């Protein structure tokens, strides 16, 4: 079920008229489908317990995942590549400094997949229900927002732990309205007449896009006046901290304080007294909390407000400052806003650096294991070997198992599921075997693919099981050729013996061999079982005989008889086969061999007569009758041959 990690259970109602809806359940198959039906515990009753007119219905409850839509499937298939290459690089080892660029790169790959998916979900699939698509887009947006924040806070960390610059970029990219409106305003003839001219400017200030602000202000008719020129100078001079800019944080702080001092001075000196709008901007620059707070609706969210506030109050903010700043921002917006949303909680937990909480919240909010699994994996590798993040190892495995379980339940994504299980410890290996073994073998092609995956992973038991099932099925369909091929590959002696018997019995019946090319080329597989060996050797005899190599054929036949490999029902056939050889003008069967045959004939005679009394086996019965008719013939041939052989052997010796 997709609700596997909730704290509280979800409740679902199932309408049914029988037994006041008393249900009991059975779980089945990999896809976690649950069969539920009304039931009363077994007390034996005469007559039906079912009220007339009512029928027993079964309810198959299945989880339906967000992941099974076409768009999500692209995400699933693309991300597995990133996941696998990340595991590979991480396994190769390397220090934290070597790992970090990879992690950042992979994180961005995931983000770009989500973004591409978002773009496509906007463009395509008009036939999808509007709300579904909207919901899908929303989920993608949230995932990207969270992942990019976590990238800034934990993965792509900068020297000194300063986070603000990246956060400003984060806010800009996720709240692009101001920039869009700016372009819109600038395209018009009189930008300053745009209905939200000043709002755009405030918004840009709050996002730290000061060049854009200056551009906007330059289009104001009074741009040449002193207040505007003064503001332009302040905006131009605001220092931005550059991590690799060669300026230390302390030095930057001095410059910053100097600049903000200048802003305050101009404010006090009344530079902007004539222009209240500029006054507001200046107050923002001075970090006036009341002013920034009063403009919070331009920031849409508390986290935007938080970043804007920090931008003008604490430009060297580090991760540990964020928790307090976030609380303040939430406090400020709460009065006006509705209750805190699940997304808010995830972002807050991120800023509080509580990864445990972040993962947990993501699980509950995003309704899909795709994101939490990949996120946890990234964080696991990020905090690799740090004691306080030890829980990530177990959590990661649990989540990967869960994710691949969802994939395995899908008719088409099971192969991807197995790829994840390769990186999931012993339970992953065990589960991969279950997934492969239980894949319905709907065609040879599926069987070959399952076998290939199992063989790559050295799951010999799975390979054997699949081959056995395929062999068994072919046998049920009377397809002996396929049956024996799979049987040989399953290395199942009992099964291949059974098929070999079937082939021999059929030969006894109609004198024809099916799939003779395969039987003629069994090679080492012949040794799998005695019956198979016999079958293979017996075919060899036929070939020799057909090729006119009577001497060799005779030797092989006699050795087959004396080795006792042949099943009893086949003895008559062997003796009848000997008949033409015995009748050869030049003896090909030696006296020694003739004795063997005579011995067999006598055994057979006793066996046949007792068997006929017992009357069992219709298939062998007819051949036995045929044999009894020929018995005289064989005896005669044996005697003649013996005589000829003795003479010949005697001649050679003398």
């Amino acid at each position, binding site marked *: 079920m997709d609700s596997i990690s909730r704290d509280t259970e979800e409740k679902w109602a199932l309408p049914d008229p029988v037994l006041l809806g008393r249900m009991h359940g059975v779980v089945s198959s990999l896809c976690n489908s649950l069969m539920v039906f009304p039931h009363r515990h077994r007390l034996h009753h005469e007559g039906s317990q079912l009220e007339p007119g009512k029928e027993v219905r079964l309810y198959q409850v299945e989880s339906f995942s967000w992941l099974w839509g*076409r*768009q999500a*499937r*692209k995400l699933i*298939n*693309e991300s*597995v*590549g990133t996941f*696998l290459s990340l595991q590979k690089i991480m396994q190769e080892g390397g220090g934290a400094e070597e790992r970090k660029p990879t992690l950042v790169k992979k994180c961005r790959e995931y983000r770009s997949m989500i973004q591409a998916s978002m773009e496509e979900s906007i463009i395509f699939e008009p036939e999808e229900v509007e709300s579904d698509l909207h919901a899908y887009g929303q989920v993608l947006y949230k995932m990207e927002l969270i992942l990019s924040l976590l990238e800034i806070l934990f993965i792509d960390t900068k020297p000194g732990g300063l986070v603000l610059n990246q956060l400003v970029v984060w806010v800009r990219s996720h709240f692009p309205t101001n920039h869009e409106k700016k372009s819109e305003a600038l395209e018009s003839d009189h930008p300053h007449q745009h209905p939200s001219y000043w709002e755009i400017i405030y918004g840009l200030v709050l996002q730290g896009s000061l060049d854009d602000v200056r551009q906007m202000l330059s289009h104001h008719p009074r741009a040449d006046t002193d207040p505007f020129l003064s503001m332009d100078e302040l905006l131009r001079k605001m220092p931005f901290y550059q991590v690799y800019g060669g300026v230390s944080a302390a030095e930057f702080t001095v410059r910053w304080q100097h600049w903000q001092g200048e802003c305050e001075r101009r404010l006090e000196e009344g530079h902007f007294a004539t222009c209240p709008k500029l006054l507001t901007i200046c107050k923002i620059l001075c970090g006036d909390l009341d002013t920034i707070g009063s403009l919070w609706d331009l920031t849409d969210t508390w986290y935007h407000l938080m970043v804007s506030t920090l931008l003008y109050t604490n430009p060297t903010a580090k991760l540990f400052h964020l928790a307090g700043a976030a609380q303040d921002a939430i406090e400020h917006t709460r009065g006006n806003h509705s209750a805190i949303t699940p997304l808010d909680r995830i972002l807050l937990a991120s800023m509080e650096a509580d990864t445990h909480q972040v993962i947990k919240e993501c699980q509950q909010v995003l309704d899909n294991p795709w994101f939490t699994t990949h996120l946890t994996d990234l964080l696991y590798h990020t905090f690799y070997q740090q004691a306080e993040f030890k829980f990530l190892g177990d959590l990661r495995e649990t989540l990967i198992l869960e994710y691949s379980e969802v994939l395995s339940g899908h*008719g*088409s994504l099971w*192969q*991807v599921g197995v*790829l994840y299980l390769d990186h999931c410890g012993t339970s992953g290996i065990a589960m991969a075997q279950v997934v492969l073994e239980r894949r319905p073998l*709907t*065609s*040879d*092609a599926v069987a*070959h*693919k399952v076998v*290939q995956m199992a*063989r*790559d992973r050295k799951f010999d038991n799975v390979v054997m099981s699949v081959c056995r099932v395929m062999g068994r099925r*072919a046998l049920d*369909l*009377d*397809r*002996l*050729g*396929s*049956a024996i*091929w799979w049987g*040989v590959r399953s290395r199942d002696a009992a099964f291949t013996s059974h098929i070999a018997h079937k082939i021999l019995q059929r030969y006894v019946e109609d004198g*024809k061999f*099916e*799939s*003779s*090319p*395969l039987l003629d*080329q*069994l*090679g*080492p*597989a012949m040794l799998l079982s005695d019956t198979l060996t016999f079958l293979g050797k017996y075919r060899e005899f036929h070939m020799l005989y057909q090729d006119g190599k009577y001497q060799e054929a005779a030797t092989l036949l006699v050795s087959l008889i004396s080795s006792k490999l042949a099943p009893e029902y086949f003895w008559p056939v062997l003796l009848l086969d000997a008949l033409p050889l015995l009748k050869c003008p030049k003896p090909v069967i030696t006296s020694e061999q003739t004795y063997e045959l005579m011995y067999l004939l006598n055994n057979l005679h006793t066996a046949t007569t007792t068997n006929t009394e017992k009357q069992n086996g219709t298939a062998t019965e007819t051949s036995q009758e045929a044999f009894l008719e020929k018995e005289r013939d064989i005896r005669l041939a044996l005697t003649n041959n013996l005589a000829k052989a003795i003479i010949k052997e005697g001649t050679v010796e003398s």
Partner: protein
Amino acid sequence: MTGGRVSSKKYVGSKVNIVRWRPAASHYTHADTFISGTWGDGENEVCVWRVPECDDDPNLQHNLKHQGNVNDIQYVSRDTFATASSTGSVHLYQHNVGGHLEHKTSWKQIHSFRTSRSPCTGVTSNGDQIASVGEDGKLIIINPTQERPLRIMESVGGCSVYAAVYVRANEILTGSLQGYLRLWDIRAAQPAKTILHSIDQVGVYDLAVHPTQQHLVAAGGDDGALAIWDLRHTTQPFTIIAAHNGPMSEVRFHPGAPDHLFTGGLDGQLLHWDASTSATPTHTHITPYTPSRQHQGGSVTVWVSSAVGSGCVDTTAIIPPSPLPINSLDIDGTTLIAASDNEAIYTVRQVMLF
């Protein structure tokens, strides 16, 4: 001979079992449209894709639902193609003006077991007829204009057949699970001869005929090895060269430069076999199979040279191995397309200089 390859990967949201270039409009142009068929989903489909001149991904032109997995696709003419379905049916589709597909007709469940459906595994065509093979071991000849199959031929033994190719107008070569090739003369009552593949019953998964030397056949096997057969000497393959780490899914000669061969495998590899650099061309004196059109290469081929015989062929991986099987590939001009279970269609441009 490998130039600056440009490969792109497009995720299409379903596992693609087969890709085929639509034949180009004339000999002087290259194909720019291909079709794909999916497998493994509740609803499968055939899709038409257009490959833009620039290095962009192919664009979906049209798609139609297909009952069952699409196991194989073969063009009968430039405008019509047949598909092999896992339901045992053969379907015929047509390209209409405007890039749309139209389902023309079906031969429903012509492949079947005694009591259940048998997947149809392959289709081939000589331009007039269609021949299909299936897990039921049958070879069925269809006239596209007739409702009922022309001929149904069954090999005794009860064994799945996976591949079929026309080696002449009236001769079809089939390859089976048990690893033997069989040559059928469809005019005669019985198959003309049976050729064995290897002594370990290595299943034959795909067959490809040399475009100009039609007595040369490449067979892709269960063990990942490529076997080159000279049908004039059928006691054993001319050579067997191991390459893939698992069954080979598809083998294709380059239609215009047949010294080059491409294979895909369940191991996720896509390989380019270049026999032109490692071997000197050999004149093949007997030419009972007169090729209809002679491309470059003429009656000269490198595939039966001693170098190839000793297994000496350059193989290069065209793409980094996919974690999941490569199911199909096709090549026209310098552009190769391939499909995988990773739900991706690969487009590799400048796969070779040509």
